[in-house]
């Protein structure tokens, strides 16, 4: 812990007789996170972007489906900062509205995937034996089928509104979390405090929720953060193939759907939504990286 303090600070504290270990774990984590400059910048940027997107109905200059036939396929101008599409709809407005959906899909799909992974992984790791064997074979199975093609096939016939996409992506992104959680539980389970809780007559459910999961939450949080970026990219890939959230509801992915055909004459329609995805996922991953460093007690 002392590496967070400068030599001078340490000496002053020591001469005052103050122990540096008084700070809580949460505070140490927070301070370590603040040291990861990129993660801090990324967090601020992402929060701003999310705010802008979620306030879109208030701050967006136009309606997301407002058609302006006198201004179709215009490049960036003073009136339309990022240009307009083939129906004269303002690109900036649609990017903000699209961000709401894309970010929500990313967050909820990652949450669903992590929750599933945590449940499956903790059940397998805690109970062991046959249950473990069965669940891990299930994980192997899910890992063995190429995920993207599988998701593509399912979304080609399933309900492709935002909710459906979240369920489909979440349902096929739990495997990594499950393996990590299982491994972590196997080692946490050996601790004396788990034996003590058992001896005191605590139920399995209580032991998992109270004593085991809080001790492995680090790996779950980091995994979930990285899952957000993956889910946003998967959604955009599905939309690009025409399988994502259907228009006219804009998402960053479906805004790119038709852009390939018009890229030569209206490149901004391709460049800006892609930049939005890239920046968002980049920020999410930087945050994940910062969290990983901050939450890892061995560093």
């Amino acid at each position, binding site marked *: 812990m002392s590496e967070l303090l400068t030599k001078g600070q340490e000496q002053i504290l020591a001469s005052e007789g103050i122990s540096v270990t008084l700070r809580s774990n949460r505070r140490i984590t927070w301070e370590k996170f603040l040291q990861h400059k990129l993660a801090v910048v990324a967090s601020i940027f992402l929060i701003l972007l999310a705010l802008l997107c979620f306030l879109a109905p208030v701050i967006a200059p136009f309606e997301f489906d407002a058609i302006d036939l006198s201004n179709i396929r215009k490049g960036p101008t003073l009136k339309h900062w990022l240009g307009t599409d083939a129906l004269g709809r303002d690109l900036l407005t649609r990017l903000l509205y699209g961000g709401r959906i894309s970010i929500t899909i990313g967050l909820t799909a990652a949450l669903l995937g992590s929750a599933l992974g945590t449940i499956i992984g903790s059940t397998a790791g805690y109970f062991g034996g046959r249950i473990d064997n069965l669940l891990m074979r299930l994980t192997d*199975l899910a890992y063995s*089928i190429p995920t993207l093609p599988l998701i593509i096939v399912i979304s080609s*016939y399933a309900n492709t509104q935002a909710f459906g996409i979240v369920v489909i992506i979440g349902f096929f992104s739990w495997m990594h979390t499950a393996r990590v959680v299982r491994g972590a539980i196997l080692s946490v389970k050996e601790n004396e405090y788990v034996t003590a809780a058992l001896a005191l007559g605590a139920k399995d459910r209580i032991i998992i929720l109270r004593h085991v999961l809080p001790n492995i939450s680090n790996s779950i949080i980091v995994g979930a953060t990285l899952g957000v970026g993956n889910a946003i990219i998967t959604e955009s890939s599905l939309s690009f193939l025409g399988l994502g959230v259907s228009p006219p509801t804009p998402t960053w992915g479906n805004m790119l759907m038709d852009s390939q055909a018009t890229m030569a004459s209206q490149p901004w329609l391709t460049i800006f939504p892609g930049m939005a995805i*890239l*920046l968002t*996922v980049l920020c999410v991953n930087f945050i994940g990286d910062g969290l990983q460093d901050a939450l890892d007690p061995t560093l």
Partner: protein
Amino acid sequence: MLKYVIRRTLQMIPLLFAISIVIFTIIQAAPGGPEGTLLDRGMFVDPAAIDAYRARLGVDQPVYIQYFKWIGAMLTGDMGISFQTQRPVFMMILERLPDTLRLMGLSFLVAAVIAIPLGVFSAVKQYSAFDFIATGASFVAIAMPVFWFGLMMQYFFSVKLQWLPVAGTVTVGVGGFVDELKHIIMPATVLSLHSIAGWSRYMRSSMLGVLNQDYIRTAHSKGLRKRTVITVHAVKNASIPVVSVMTLDIARLFSGAVITETIFGWPGIGRMFIQAMHARDYPLLMGIMMMGSTMVVVFNLVADVIYGWLDPRISYE
């Protein structure tokens, strides 16, 4: 060793059966049979004709019978008949395989040749400007949707600079090695992007771990040149886990090929998969999915075997 490979191969069999059941179930769960594509066009079709069509394709029977028929035929190497073309799925896949393998092979090679030196230099010059730029670039690459990177490449190199053809494998009437090379540059770059980013970061962290080992210090203190220590002692040991990851990723390149081939109109299996999806060509979809899954399972085993072969500390018990 041989015992281990045999045991693992035997374990693959129930796994592949389970995979086949999942894939079959998911594809059968699609509403509207193959006649859906006919009905989608809004034409009136005689119900009797539809029944006859369904009977001819064998989709009028109960699902479990269809499964057993399909898997039984699969075991003899018969992957079924495509709904779309009425041709054997196996032949269709075989025809497309060379183009996909060419693309995947070149991508793999490009990725390996770039990623490994990148990771090594980053680790040796840790916290240098080079390391900073390489790590930053790999973060950007990982955050980039593959298809968007492809679109951007097309915009700059085909539309703006007009250096490279937008799509396809060869210009009709031109041909030749240079022309084919021009066509494959962009798809191969796009397909290898994530591998370059992932492998170089992996190589970097693996190198960093090795560089702190005692035997590296020993090698240095013996008076060996820095270059010798790094190339002979460090890189060799650090690349063991990376080689294993690279092997696993061969199967993942297949997933990437679906998107890449679609963008660049590359006539491989990935693009055929998307076409089969739109046409609800179930036998073809199942055939391609089974092939992809088998690749994952096989390369898993290969990766484990290579790992143990390169690192004698791993035992096969």
